C-alpha cells in the first residue's frame, strides 16, 4: 500500500463514509508510515472540526417571516419589467425617435434642391443677375437694361454654368 493511495482515500471521500475494509487498510498502513499517520490524524481532526461547526445552526426566530414582509412593504424591490410591458410604455417614444432619425437621413442624402457649394462669387452674381433678367424682376437698373445687355448677361451666365 503506497502513501498516495492512503492520502487519496482520505481526500476522495468523507471520512465517515469509508468502508470497514478501507479503514483497516489505512490503520494497518499507518503503523509503519508516520507521514500517513499524520495525514490520517489531521483528516480525523478535520472531520471532527467540520462536524462541530456543522452542528451550529442558527434557527429562524418566530418573527422572521413578519420581518421579511415588513422589509418588503417598506421598500418593495423593483420587479423586473417584462418586455411587452416595457414596450407598451417605451414603444411610442422609441418609434418616434426612429422615425425622426429616418427623416433626418432622408433629408441629408436625398436633398432635391442641390445647390453648388464651390461656385465662384462672380458666377453667383451672374446667376443672380440672370434670374432677375429672365424673370423680369429686379431693381430699376435691370428693368432698364438694353437688349444687348440682356444678351451679354445671358451669355456670361451660360459661361458660368459651364463651370459646374
Amino acid at each position, binding site marked *: 500500500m503506497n502513501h498516495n493511495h492512503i492520502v487519496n482515500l482520505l*481526500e*476522495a471521500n468523507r471520512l465517515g463514509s469509508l468502508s470497514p475494509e478501507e479503514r483497516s487498510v489505512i490503520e494497518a498502513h499507518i503503523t509503519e508510515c508516520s507521514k500517513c499517520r499524520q495525514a490520517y490524524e489531521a483528516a480525523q*481532526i478535520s472531520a471532527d472540526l467540520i462536524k462541530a461547526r*456543522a452542528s451550529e445552526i*442558527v434557527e429562524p426566530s418566530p418573527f422572521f417571516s413578519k420581518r421579511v414582509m415588513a422589509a418588503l412593504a417598506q421598500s418593495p424591490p423593483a420587479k423586473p419589467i417584462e418586455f411587452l410591458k416595457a414596450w407598451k410604455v417605451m414603444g411610442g417614444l422609441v418609434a418616434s425617435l426612429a422615425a425622426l432619425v429616418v427623416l433626418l437621413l432622408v433629408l441629408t442624402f436625398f436633398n432635391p434642391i442641390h445647390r453648388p457649394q464651390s461656385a465662384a462669387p462672380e458666377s453667383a452674381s451672374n446667376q443672380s443677375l440672370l434670374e432677375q433678367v429672365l424673370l423680369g424682376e429686379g431693381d430699376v437698373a435691370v428693368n432698364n437694361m438694353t437688349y444687348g445687355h440682356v444678351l451679354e448677361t445671358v451669355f456670361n451666365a451660360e459661361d458660368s454654368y459651364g463651370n459646374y
Partner: protein
Amino acid sequence: MDSTVNLEQNSELELVRRARSGDEPAFEEIVRRYSPRVFQIASRFFRRRSEVEEMAQEVFLKAYTQLSSYQERGSFEGWLSRITTNTCLNALRHAKRHPETVLSDLTEDEDKWLESKLAERSVDHRQSAEHHLIAADLAERVLGVLSPDDRLVLTLIDGDEFSVDEVAEMMGWSRSKVKVQAFRARRRMRKAVEKLLGRNRRKGGSLLGVKPDHEP
C-alpha cells in the same frame, strides 16, 4: 385563521404561483416554510445570528423579485437553496479575509483541544459542551483559511452529509465539479490542520509526549 390553514395545506407549486401573482400571505407562508433551510445554509457561512438573519432576509427579498424566473422544473426548495448559496458566497467573497492571521494565534483552549483530540484515540471521553464550543471556534478559524467555495462544499458534504447530487443542485455545479472541489477542499483543510499540529508540536515539544516517527 382559515386562510392560514389553507395556505399551510397548499402545495409548494400552488404557493409559488399565488405569490407570483402578488398574493403576499402566500409569500409569507413560503418564508415560514423554507426559512429553516435558508438559515441552515447561511449558518455554514456565518455564525452570528444577526449576520445569518441579514443574509436570509436578503435571500427572500431576492426570491420575491425573481419568482417569475423560477421555471418550475426543479424543486422550489432547490431553487431557493441556490439563491442562498450564491448570496452567501458573494457576501463572503466580498468580505475581507486574512488567511495568514486567522491561524496565527490559537488560544490556550484551542491548543488543549487539539491535544485532547489526539489523546481521544487512546482515552475515549465524552465531549463537554465547552469542548464543543472550542471545537466550533477552531473550526471557524481553520475554515476561514479556505476559500468560500471550499468551505461550503466541506461543510455541506462532510458536515451536513448532503449528497453530491444535492450539493450540485444547490451550487448550480456539475457532479464532477462538486467531487473535485470536495477533494481539493479536504486536502487544503487537512494541510491546514497538519500545519497546526506541527506548530503545536514545536511549541510544546512533541504532542502528547509522543515523539514523531522518522519521516520517509
